[in-house]
C-alpha cells in the first residue's frame, strides 16, 4: 500500500478491505502498478471491479477478437457499462501456452513481461486453471502486434472454445522421483501434434489433456481433463531394503502399521516380523506406501501410462471423472509416444463425428455407448475399465464368443 502517486487511482472503497491481511493482495498489486504506470485499462478494470463489489453483479460480455489465421486464443471482454467505465471498454485476455510444467528462465519470462507492458494492461495471471499464461487486458487494436512480438520470441497462443486446449503436466522427471514417464516431453509432443486443433475451433466442444507422472495425479488430470495420461508401472514395487530398515528403525513398527500397512486399499501389505512384505499381485498402484517411504520404495521398473478418458466439470450431467481406457501402455520410445497420439487422434475423430454441440467426449461415450466407442477406436474391452461388471440385464450382445473356452485353463 504505497502512498505515492495516488493521483493515478480512483477511489475503490469497496475493494480496500482486500488490502488488509497477510496473504498477498491483488488489489495492492494492481494499485501499485497503476500508481507507477498510470495504465488506464488496468485502472478501468479495477474501477469496474469496485462497482461489481458494490452491486454484486458482473459487467463483462464476450465478443469476437482474434489474431490472423487463428480462431482461438483470445478471450474477448467488453464492458457492459462502458459509459461508466470507458477505460475498461475493452479488456481482452491472451492465453499464451507456457512450457510444460510451467518452467521459465527469467530471461524468457522477462521478454514476455516487456512485450506485455508495451501492449497490454500489465496485468496477468500465473496461471489459469487450464495452464495458460493469461495476459489480461488488451485492446483489440493491439492484439495482433502483441501476438506477433510474442510469437517471434517463441511463444504461441493456447486454446479456447471448441478446440484442443492448452495442456498441463506435473513437474514430473524434472524433479520428482515418482515420475513413471516423461510428462514434460510427452505433453510437449502431444500438444504440438494437435496445434492446428488448438488454434482452430473445429470440434464439438473443448478437449483437454493433462499429464501426471504417477497416480498421485498432481495435475488433477482425472477430474479436469478429457484425456488424463497418468504414469504407472506393471512389475513389482522397487524396495531399497536398507532404507526400509532405517525407516522402521526411525519411525517404529507402530507407525509402519498404522500409517502404511493398514492404509493400503487392497491389503497388499503385511507385517512379517518387523518387516513389511508387499504382495504385488494385490497392489493397485495407489502410491500410498511409496509416498510415506519415498526413500525405501519406488515404482517398479516396467513403467508406462494409464490413459483415462472423459473427465470434465459439472455442466450439464454432473461432474465426471475420467475412466480407464488403456490400463497400460509403455511410454519410452518415440514409437510409444506416436502410438498414444495415434490412439487419441482416433478418439477425437470419433467424437468429432458423433459429438453433439457442446458435448464433451465423456458425455458422448455415455450417450452413444462404450461398446461403439471401443469398436470405433480399436480398443478391446478390458476388466480394468470397470469398477465392476454391469448389474442390469439390459444389453444386446453378439453371441459370437464361447463363454466356456477358458474354463479349465483358469489360473
Amino acid at each position, binding site marked *: 500500500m504505497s502512498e505515492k502517486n495516488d493521483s493515478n487511482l480512483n477511489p475503490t472503497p469497496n475493494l480496500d478491505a482486500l488490502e488488509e491481511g497477510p496473504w498477498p493482495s491483488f488489489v495492492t498489486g494492481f494499485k501499485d502498478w497503476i500508481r507507477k504506470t498510470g495504465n488506464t485499462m488496468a485502472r478501468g478494470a479495477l474501477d469496474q471491479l469496485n462497482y461489481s463489489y458494490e452491486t454484486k453483479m458482473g459487467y463483462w460480455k464476450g465478443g469476437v477478437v482474434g489474431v490472423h489465421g487463428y480462431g482461438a486464443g483470445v478471450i474477448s471482454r467488453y464492458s457492459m457499462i462502458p459509459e461508466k467505465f470507458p477505460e475498461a471498454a475493452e479488456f481482452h485476455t491472451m492465453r499464451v501456452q507456457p512450457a510444460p510444467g510451467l518452467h521459465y528462465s527469467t530471461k524468457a519470462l522477462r521478454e514476455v513481461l516487456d512485450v506485455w507492458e508495451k501492449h497490454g494492461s500489465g496485468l496477468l495471471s500465473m496461471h489459469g486453471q487450464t495452464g495458460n499464461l493469461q495476459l489480461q487486458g488488451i485492446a483489440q487494436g493491439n492484439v495482433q502486434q502483441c501476438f506477433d512480438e510474442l510469437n517471434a520470441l517463441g511463444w504461441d497462443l493456447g486454446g479456447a472454445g471448441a478446440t484442443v486446449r492448452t495442456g498441463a503436466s506435473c513437474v514430473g522427471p524434472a524433479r520428482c522421483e515418482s515420475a513413471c514417464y516423461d510428462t514434460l516431453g510427452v505433453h510437449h509432443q502431444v500438444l504440438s501434434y494437435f496445434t492446428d486443433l488448438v488454434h482452430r475451433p473445429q470440434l464439438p466442444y473443448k478437449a483437454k489433456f493433462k499429464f501426471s507422472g504417477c*497416480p498421485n495425479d498432481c495435475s488433477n488430470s*482425472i477430474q479436469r481433463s478429457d484425456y488424463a495420461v*497418468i504414469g*504407472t*508401472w*506393471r*512389475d513389482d514395487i522397487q524396495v531399497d531394503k536398507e532404507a526400509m530398515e532405517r525407516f522402521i528403525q526411525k519411525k517404529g513398527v507402530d507407525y509402519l502399521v498404522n500409517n502404511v500397512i493398514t492404509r493400503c*486399499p*487392497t*491389503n497388499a501389505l503385511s507385517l512379517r516380523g518387523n518387516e513389511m512384505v508387499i504382495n504385488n*499381485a*494385490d497392489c*493397485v*498402484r*495407489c502410491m500410498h506406501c511409496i509416498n510415506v517411504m519415498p526413500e525405501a520404495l519406488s515404482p517398479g521398473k516396467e513403467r508406462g501410462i*494409464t490413459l*483415462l478418458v472423459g473427465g470434465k466439470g459439472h455442466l450439464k450431467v454432473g461432474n*465426471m*471423472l*475420467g*475412466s*480407464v481406457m488403456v*490400463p*497400460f501402455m509403455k511410454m519410452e520410445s518415440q514409437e510409444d509416444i506416436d502410438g498414444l497420439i495415434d490412439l487419441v487422434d482416433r478418439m477425437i475423430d470419433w467424437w468429432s463425428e458423433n459429438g453433439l454441440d457442446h458435448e464433451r467426449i465423456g458425455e458422448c461415450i*455415455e450417450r452413444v*455407448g*462404450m*461398446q461403439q466407442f*471401443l*469398436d470405433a477406436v480399436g480398443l*478391446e*474391452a*478390458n*476388466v*480394468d*475399465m*470397470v*469398477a*465392476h*461388471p*454391469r*448389474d*442390469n*440385464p*439390459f*444389453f*444386446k*450382445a453378439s*453371441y459370437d*464368443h*464361447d*463363454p*466356456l*473356452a*477358458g*474354463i*479349465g*485353463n*483358469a*489360473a
Partner: protein
Amino acid sequence: MAQNTTTAPKRSYQTVESGPRAPEAFLHPVSRKNYGQWKYHERPRPGVLKHVAHSGDVLYTVRAGTHRQVTVDIVRHLCDLADQYADGHLRWTIRNNVEFMTPNWNNVEPLIRALEESGHPVGGTGNSVGAIAHTQGWLHCDIPATDASGVVKSMMDELYDEYVNERMPNRVRLSTSCCEINCGGQADLAVVVQHTRPPRINHAILSDVCEMPSTVARCPVAAIRPTTVNGKPSLMVVEEKCIFCGACFGACPAMEINHPEYSKMAIWVGGKNSNARSKPANMKLVCHGLPNNPPRWPEVTQVVRNILDAYKRGGRDWERLGEWIDRIGWKRFFKETGLPFDTYMIDNYRHARTSLNMSAHIRF
C-alpha cells in the same frame, strides 16, 4: 392378472376377509413359550440348529431340502414326520427348505434318517450352499424363456454335497430366473435367462390382445411405436433402440420375445442382501451366451461349479462370494474362473458411469 367379477351371483357362503393367518397357534410350543427370549444358537451339525433360550429351554431345528414344487402327498408325508418327531408343527424357510423343531435331542437323529430315507437331504445351514430361489418357468408362468424347476433340480444335484456339508467360506445363496424379470432376485450366484434379440411382433393377434398405449409406455427406451399393418392398428419396434428387456411381452403377449435359440443363459455373481460387514449389493454379470439346454443345462452347471470352486479355494471365512471378489478384484476373479470378460459386461444402462473405473487403481 385376475379382475374383480362385478356381478356376484347369489351365494350362501359369506367370505371372511381374514388376511394372513395369525401365527401364534402354529408355533411350536417351546417357541411360543420362549417367544423373543432366545439367548444364542449353535450348529451341532450341518442341517441342525440348536437354539438356547434365556429360560434355559433348548430347541433343535432340523432343516431339509424339498422339491419346492410338491404334491399333496409329499406335504402329507412331511406332516407325518412332524407329528412323529416335532410335536405336530413344521415350517418352511424363505428358501423352500422345510424345518422341524423339537426340544428333544433324541428325536434329531431319527428324524434326519427318516428325512433322508424319503429323499430329503438334511443341510442348508451355516456356510453351506443353500437351496436355490425357485421360480415358475415353463411349468406355470406365461412369459418364461426357460424352465425353473429343471434348472434348480439339475444344479442342486450337482451341488448336493455342498448342501449337506458346511464347507464354503460363508453361506452361498443361489437363484434362478426364467426370464429377465428376475423373480428369483439378487443372489450370491444367479442364473438368469437372457433374451438375445428384439421381440417378433405377432401382428395377427396384436390388436386383439394388446392394450397398445400401456404397451408403448412399458418400454424403458421408448422403442415401441404405433403403426398400421394390413390396415389394422399395430405396434412396431425400433430395433436399434430395443434392449431385449422383455417388458413389453409382460404387457402384451403379441410382443413375442421368447425363442428357443435366441434365449441364452447368463450367470451373475455377488448379490448380497444381508448387511453383515459390507452393505447389500446387486449381483453383476460374469458370463452370458450359455445355451438354454434342457433337460439338464450342463453348461450352466459347469460354470456355476467352476465359480463356486474358485470361491471355495480362495474365500476367507465369513467372506461372501461378492466380498471375496471385492478383495481380490474382478480381474483376478475372471482369471481364477477362466471366464472371458467382454464388452457387454461394461454397463451402458442408466447408471453406467458409476460402474466405470474412475481411478488409476489397477492390478497388473
